[in-house]
C-alpha cells in the first residue's frame, strides 16, 4: 500500500462503486430470494403459531436464540478492528476496518431479528421498553432480558454512528468524483452530496472529526465487551447446569471476537477480488487477522478446559452429571466437534504458510464459523434439554421452519453486505491516505506548535487560494503566511493533517466536553431510570431489594456509552459545521482526492504579496477568491 499515490488509492476505493456486473446481480437476487423466503416463513410461523418451530418444553430456547448469540458475536470483530485496534494504533487494520464496521451493523441487525422471531407475537415487544405508560408498568431492570434490549439497542446505535461518521470524508470524495464524472445534478451526485453533510476537508473539520473519532473508539471498546457479556448473562443468571458459571462473560466475548474475525476472512477474501481491492487489502491484513485468531482460539480453549474441570472440582452432582452427559449424550458429537473446529483448526495459523495461503485461510474461517455456530446452539440447547429433572429430559431437533429461517438470516446478512459494497466505500479512503502520508514522511519530527490566533475566513471576504500537490509544501507555505502576519487562513486536505492545526495554534477540540457531559448524564440517567422504576414497581423478586445497585450498573454503563456517543456526535456536527450540503465557495473537488488547498483571507491590496509568497512556497496553482 505504501507505494500507492493518493490518486491511485482514490481510484481503487471509489472504483469499486462502479455499476456492478451481471454475476453480482445474480448473487444479490439469490440472497434476496432466500431472505424473502425466510420472511415468508416467519409470517407463516406467526400465522400458524410457534408449534411449527421445534422448540417445546423443556427446550424453550432453540436455534433461534443460538442464532441470536452467534450473530451478536459476529458483530464483535468490527468493533475490535475499528475501535480497539485504532486505539492501539495497529495500522494493519486500516484497509479492512470499514468492511468490519459494516459487518458489525448488519450482524447486529440480523441478531436483533431473532428475539422477535422467537417471541411469536412480536408486536408486544414494546412491553420491554422503558417508556412512561399510563398503566405505570415499567420493565424490571433486574431482568437480563431487559439488559439485552438496552445493550443490543445501544450497540446498534453506536455501531451505526461509528460507521456513518467514519464514512463522511470518504462520501465527500465519492461526491466529488461523481460530480466530475456525472455532473452535479445527477441523482447519484445529489445523493452523495446530501449524505456527505458538506464535508470540505477543512483543517478545522479534521480537528473535530479526529477527536470525535477517537472518542467513538474509546466508547465503543468497553461497549463491545459489555454487549456479549450481557448476552452471556442471559445464561449465567439462569440456575441451569452448564449455564450458571462466572467465566461466561469473558468466554463469550473471546468467542464472539473469534467468530467475528473468522467472518472477516470469509467475507473479505472473495470481496477483495470481486471489488478489485487487491492493492489495498493485502495478505498482510489476513496474516494479522489470523494471528489475532490464534489468541482468541487459545482463550476459547482455556474456557473449554476450565468448564469440565470445574464441574468435577465443584462436587456439584448436577454440574458433574451435566458435564458427563455433554460428553456422552445425544449432543456428544457436537461437543466433540467444538475443539477441532474452534481451537485446533485456527491453531494451524501458527504456521506461516497457512497464514499466507488464501485458500487455507478461507477454509479455516468457514470451519470456525461452523464451529462457533454449533457452540452457540450447543450452549442454548444442551442445558435446557438436560436440566435437573430426569423425567423432563428431551432431545431437540430444529424444524424445517427454523432451519430455513436460519439460512435466510445468513442470506439477509450477506445481502446487506453486498448492497453496502456497491453503494459505500468499503475501504476507509481517508485512513488509507493518512497511511500513505505517514509512509511518505516517515516523521521528520513534530511540527512546532504555533501560537498564532487564527480567525475563520468569512464567506463575504476575499482572499487567495493556493493549490498544492505536496502536503509538506503546503505546510511550509502556511508557516510562511503566518509568519508574515496573516491570521485569516484555512487549509483543505484529503487527509487529516494534525500539523496544520498545530501550526495554526488551534486548541484541542472542545468535543471532549460534550462527550464527558453526555457520558456522565447517561450514567446518572441509567441509575435514575432503574431506581425510579424500582421505586414505582416496588417488586421484590428473588429475595432481592427493589432497588439493587449491582445489576443497575449495567443499565448505567450502557447509558454512559449511549449518551456519551450521541453527545460526541452532536459536538462534532456543531463544531465541524456539518449538516448542510453546501460547500465553501473556494472549494475545489480535488481537495478530497489528492490536492491540498491553502486559503489566505486578505484585502485586495495585499493579494499580490500573498500570491508571491505562495508561489514561492511551491503552489501549483493560485486562485483569487471573491
Amino acid at each position, binding site marked *: 500500500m505504501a507505494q500507492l499515490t493518493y490518486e491511485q488509492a482514490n481510484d481503487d476505493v471509489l472504483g469499486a462503486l462502479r455499476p456492478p456486473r451481471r454475476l453480482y446481480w445474480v448473487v444479490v437476487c439469490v440472497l434476496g430470494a432466500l431472505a424473502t423466503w425466510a420472511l415468508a416463513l416467519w409470517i407463516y410461523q406467526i400465522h400458524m403459531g410457534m408449534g411449527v418451530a421445534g422448540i417445546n418444553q423443556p427446550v424453550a430456547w432453540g436455534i433461534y436464540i443460538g442464532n441470536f448469540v452467534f450473530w451478536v458475536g459476529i458483530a464483535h470483530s468490527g468493533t475490535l478492528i475499528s475501535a480497539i485496534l485504532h486505539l492501539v494504533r495497529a495500522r494493519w487494520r486500516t484497509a479492512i476496518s470499514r468492511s468490519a464496521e459494516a459487518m458489525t451493523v448488519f450482524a447486529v441487525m440480523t441478531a436483533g431479528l431473532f428475539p422477535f422471531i422467537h417471541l411469536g407475537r412480536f408486536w408486544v415487544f414494546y412491553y420491554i421498553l422503558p417508556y412512561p405508560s399510563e398503566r405505570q408498568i415499567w420493565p424490571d431492570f433486574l431482568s437480563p432480558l431487559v439488559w439485552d434490549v438496552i445493550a443490543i439497542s445501544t450497540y446498534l446505535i453506536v455501531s451505526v454512528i461509528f460507521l456513518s461518521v467514519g464514512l463522511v470524508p470518504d462520501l465527500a470524495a465519492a461526491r466529488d468524483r461523481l460530480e466530475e464524472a456525472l455532473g452535479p445534478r445527477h441523482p447519484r451526485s445529489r445523493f452523495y452530496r446530501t449524505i456527505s453533510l458538506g464535508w470540505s476537508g477543512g483543517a478545522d473539520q479534521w480537528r473535530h472529526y479526529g477527536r470525535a473519532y477517537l472518542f467513538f473508539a474509546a466508547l465503543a471498546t468497553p461497549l463491545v465487551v459489555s454487549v456479549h457479556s450481557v448476552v452471556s448473562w442471559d445464561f449465567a443468571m439462569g440456575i441451569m447446569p452448564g449455564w450458571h458459571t*462466572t467465566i461466561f462473560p469473558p468466554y463469550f466475548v473471546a468467542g464472539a471476537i473469534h467468530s467475528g474475525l473468522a467472518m472477516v476472512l470469509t467475507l473479505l477474501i472473495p470481496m477483495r477480488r470481486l471489488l478489485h481491492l487487491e492493492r489495498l487489502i493485502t495478505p498482510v491484513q489476513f496474516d494479522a487477522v489470523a494471528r489475532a485468531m490464534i489468541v482468541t482460539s487459545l482463550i476459547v480453549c*482455556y474456557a473449554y478446559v476450565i468448564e469440565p474441570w470445574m464441574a468435577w472440582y465443584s462436587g456439584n452432582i448436577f454440574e458433574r452429571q451435566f458435564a458427563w452427559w455433554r460428553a456422552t449424550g445425544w449432543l456428544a458429537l457436537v461437543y466433540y466437534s467444538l475443539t477441532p473446529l474452534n481451537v485446533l483448526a485456527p491453531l494451524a495459523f501458527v504456521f506461516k504458510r497457512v497464514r499466507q495461503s488464501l485458500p487455507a485461510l478461507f477454509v479455516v474461517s468457514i470451519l470456525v464459523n461452523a464451529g462457533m455456530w454449533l457452540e452457540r446452539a450447543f450452549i442454548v440447547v444442551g442445558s435446557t434439554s438436560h436440566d435437573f429433572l430426569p423425567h423432563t429430559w428431551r432431545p431437540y431437533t430444529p424444524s424445517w421452519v427454523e432451519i430455513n429461517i436460519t439460512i435466510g438470516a445468513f442470506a439477509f446478512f450477506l445481502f446487506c453486505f453486498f448492497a453496502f459494497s456497491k453503494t459505500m466505500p468499503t475501504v476507509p479512503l481517508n485512513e488509507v491516505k493518512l497511511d500513505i502520508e505517514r509512509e511518505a514522511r516517515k516523521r521528520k519530527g513534530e511540527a512546532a506548535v504555533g501560537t498564532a490566533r487564527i480567525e475563520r475566513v468569512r464567506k463575504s471576504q476575499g482572499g487567495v487560494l493556493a493549490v498544492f500537490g505536496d502536503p509538506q509544501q503546503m505546510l511550509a507555505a502556511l508557516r510562511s503566511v503566518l509568519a508574515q502576519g496573516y491570521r485569516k487562513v484555512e487549509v483543505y486536505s484529503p487527509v487529516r493533517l494534525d500539523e496544520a492545526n498545530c501550526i495554526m495554534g488551534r486548541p484541542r477540540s472542545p468535543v471532549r466536553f460534550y462527550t464527558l457531559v453526555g457520558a456522565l448524564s447517561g450514567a446518572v440517567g441509567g441509575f435514575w431510570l432503574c431506581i425510579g422504576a424500582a421505586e414505582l414497581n416496588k417488586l421484590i423478586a428473588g429475595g432481592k431489594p427493589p432497588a439493587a445497585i*449491582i445489576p443497575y450498573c449495567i443499565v448505567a454503563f450502557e447509558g454512559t456509552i449511549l449518551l456519551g456517543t450521541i453527545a460526541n456526535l452532536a459536538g462534532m456536527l456543531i463544531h465541524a459545521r456539518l449538516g448542510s450540503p453546501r460547500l465553501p465557495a473556494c472549494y475545489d473537488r480535488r481537495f478530497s482526492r489528492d490536492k491540498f488547498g491553502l486559503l489566505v483571507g486578505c484585502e485586495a491590496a495585499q493579494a499580490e504579496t500573498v500570491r508571491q509568497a505562495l508561489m514561492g512556497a511551491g503552489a501549483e496553482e493560485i486562485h483569487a477568491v471573491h
Partner: protein
Amino acid sequence: MPFTKREGGPGTVPAGLRAAGWAVLVAVGLAGWLLSMRLGEPARAWRALLVNSLFFTPLAAGLVVWSAVLQVSHGEWAGRLERLTRLGLAFAPVSLLALLVLWGFAGQWAPWKVGAQPVQGAWLHPDFLFARDVAALVVFWVVAAVYVSRRARGNCRRLAAWLIVTYAVTFSLLGFDLVMALDPTWYSTLMGGYFFMSGMYIAIAAWTLLSVHHPAGTADRLHDLGKLVVAFSMITTYLAYSQLLPIWYENLPHETRFELSRLRLGNWQWVAWGLLATVYMGPLVLLLTRWSKRTRWFLGAVAALILVGMWVERWWLVEPTFGPVAGLGMTEVTITAAFFGALAMALELGRRLVPPAPAEEEAD
C-alpha cells in the same frame, strides 16, 4: 550498553549502598515478622507471607510478561523502558523460596488437611497442591529466563508467545490453588482468569512507577503507560464484576459465602469500598485527562496508589476466608517490608545482569 548511574535510579546513592539498604530492610522485616509470629498468631503470619507471595510474584512475573506482550504485538513505543520489565526475572528465586517455605510449613496454616476433602480428594492434598504450583512456577521462570537471554540478542516473538501462554496457565493455577481453594467448598471458573489478569495490572502499575523515574520515560511513553494502566484497571474491574454478578444474582449459599465475607461481613466491606475507589474505578477517574497521564509525579503517585491498593486486594482475597475482622498489624507490615526490600534488591541485581536488547537502544 549498561545503564548509567543516573538511569539506575537515584543517581546520588551508589548502587552498593542501595543494595545494602535493601538488604537491611529485608533483614529487619524478616526479624519483625518472625517476632510477630512468635508473639502473635502463627497462622496469620503465614497467611501474611501468602498474601505477599500472591502480590509480589505476579508483579515480577507480570513485568517480564509485559516485555513479551510488546514483542508479540510488535510494540516499539517503549524504547529503553522495555528493559525495566525484564528486570523482574531477578525476583524468581525469592518467589520460589516463598512458595517452598509456604509448602514446608503448610501444616501450620493451610486449610487443606489430608483426607479432609471428600470432593476434591488428592487434588487438594497439600503436597500435591504445592508440588504442582512450584513445578508450574519453575517452568514459568525457566521460560522467562530463556526469553530474557534471547531478547538480548534481538526479537524472539515465538518464545514471547510461549511465555505469555505459560504465564496464563501458571498463574491461573496459582489463583485456583492459593486463593480459591483456601475455601475448598467455594468455586468460581473465573478466579484463575481474574488472578492472572490482575497480575498484569499490578505489573503495569509497577512498570509505570519504575518508568516515571527513568530518563527514557518521555511524556509520550508515560502517556501510553497511563492508558495501559487505565485499560487494565477496567479489565480487572470487569472480571471482578463478572464474578460478582452471577453470584449475587443467584444468591446460592455455597457461592455467596465468598462475596458476603468480603462485601458485607465485619469491617471488610470498608476495605471493599476502598478498593472500588482506588484500584477498580480510581484510575479511570484519576487518569482521565491528558495532563494526568503525561505528568511524572502525578502518574507515579497514581501507580503507587494502585500498587498499595492491589496489595490490599490480595489481602482482601485471602484473609476474609479466615475471619470477619480486618486488621493490619506488625505481622503484615514487616513481611511486606521484607518482600519490598527483596524486590528492590532483585531489581538492582537485574540492572547488572539483564542486558539491553539491540532494538531498545535504536528506538531511543
